[in-house]
């Protein structure tokens, strides 16, 4: 299993693709999926199945959509101390990403480093594309993550500056 996992969480519904778009932007920007130590994956509402994906990883980067009445496209990074306040968020079958992370913590399955990012979304209607603000936020977050990767794992990325920008 790879030591670094980048997991974009979402669904095909409108802005809820935020996590997937960030993964797309990272891949387009040259993050090396072929490097043995890196797994990059898009997940569709994983629920508890997120936990096995954390097992054995040293560093996990998670990107998901969030709704907190902030401007659409705002990016927020959540520290572990923030998790309890957000447990009752959007989820499938009452078991969302933060529930999965909390359970993983109880099972000692959390990696040493976990970066959880949320992108503020608006509507998430099935069949609709994500709005421009979400595309832009995904690009911005991908550049930020790529810079992190470049500093920590130079072999993981070809050229962090190559992620294209999007004009709204």
């Amino acid at each position, binding site marked *: 299993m790879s030591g670094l996992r980048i997991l974009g969480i979402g*669904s095909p519904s409108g802005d809820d693709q935020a996590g997937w778009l960030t993964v797309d932007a990272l891949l387009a920007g040259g993050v090396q999926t072929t490097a043995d130590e890196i797994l990059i994956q898009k997940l569709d509402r994983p629920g*508890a*199945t997120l936990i096995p994906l954390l097992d054995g990883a040293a560093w996990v980067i998670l990107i998901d959509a969030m709704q907190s009445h902030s401007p659409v496209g705002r990016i927020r990074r959540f520290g572990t101390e923030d998790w309890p306040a957000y447990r009752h968020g959007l989820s499938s*079958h009452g078991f969302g990403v933060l529930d999965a992370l909390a359970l993983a913590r109880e*099972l*000692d399955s959390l990696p040493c480093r976990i970066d959880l990012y949320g992108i503020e979304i608006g509507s998430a209607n*099935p069949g609709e594309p994500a709005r421009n603000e979400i595309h832009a936020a995904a690009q911005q977050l991908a550049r930020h993550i790529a810079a992190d990767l470049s500093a920590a794992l130079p072999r993981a990325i070809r050229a962090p500056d190559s992620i294209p920008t999007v004009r709204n």
Partner: protein
Amino acid sequence: MTEQKRTVAIHVPVLARVEGEGALDLRIDNGKIAELRLRIFEPPRFFEKFLEGRHYTEIPDMVARICGICPVAYQVTAAQALEQLFGVELDPWAHAMRRVFYCGEWIQSHSLHIHLLAAPDFFGCNSAIELARIAPDEVRRGLRIQALGNELMDLFGARSVHPVGVRVGGFHGAPAPVRIDAIRDKLRAALPEAEALIRWTAGIAVPQDDQAFVSVAMRHPVDYAIERGQIGASDGLRIGAEAFDDHFSERHEPHSTALFSTYHQQPYLVGPLARLNLNHDRLPERVKALLAEAGLVLPSRNLFHSLVARAVEILLALHEALRLLDGYRLPDSSSVPVTPRAGVAYGCTEAPRGLLWHRYEMDDAGCVVNARIVPPTSQNQGRIEEDLRLSLLAFGLDHPDDALRLHCEQVIRNYDPCISCATHFLRMKVERA
């Protein structure tokens, strides 16, 4: 008079992640239950209406969207109903792999329910996260089993959430033998884990309850019925899917957006315990031996045995998947040609939560004229209310509100209802006079 409310714990926006919500109203007057209503206010689905005018080739993928946990049940039921109407004879490979695909869904759904939804109740925990503090190895095992079920679904459906593998006439593709070899190793490795799970669930202290009810489940001459068989009942009924309306009826109640089903005007049980009650003689010998070791006497009249029934069905599903994948070969084609015809199609299978029945009226172009789908949760709704009433009386009505609420939640979770599946956010109003 006291009143207690518990608000929904999940903020549900307009997203495809919504599974709905339920509530319970209980009024006790002079130590007697004056009112007990399980309210389901999940928005109406309209799925049957969405299907009208759609071509038969679209139906399996559309109905898979009805449930994120049991999409295979909807796909397979729809496909088989239409195949029967169109006179399609599946390749034996497709027959067998449909059952394997379905086994994956039973494994993941049952393991999810046991470990994340139901088991915490019996250990005084509010959630699986709390349960993991006192039973971490068991929770880890449950997650491994659930992941294996998902992997099996992914193998045939391309993904475990809303899979897309099934088509009318078979499958869209066949997994490569190398992938089958890999999953067979995992299935074999999971057998002792599933056996340990049965012992664990059988050892959990559950309330003693004894209720009279009719169990309804499919029955097959040879197999433990999953994807084929007749509709059976514990009173001896044996009918084909087309005769469902002669014995079962649905009615609307003002307090629920889900229809109530009755069998000869009475509530009835569908789901794992109903299946086990009717079909325990069809279990593999090894599973029967474990049941005997666990001391579970069947048929059971205690709904709290649903927990161990799910564990038994996980082991059964592992055995079945292994048996059917033994000697796996790539078929010449993963599907057979289909020519639509007009008529009425009926189908039923055993979804993880119980009997699932479909009816489609089709035109000669292969498009849906009208559709009707009867899911397990609506069939169990009347039984849940009946169970709550009897179970509360046996439990005693003089307990504090919190204890009554917990007991009611436990009873409801036995059924694994699809009212958000996690009924931890049950809102309960108690009035005492």
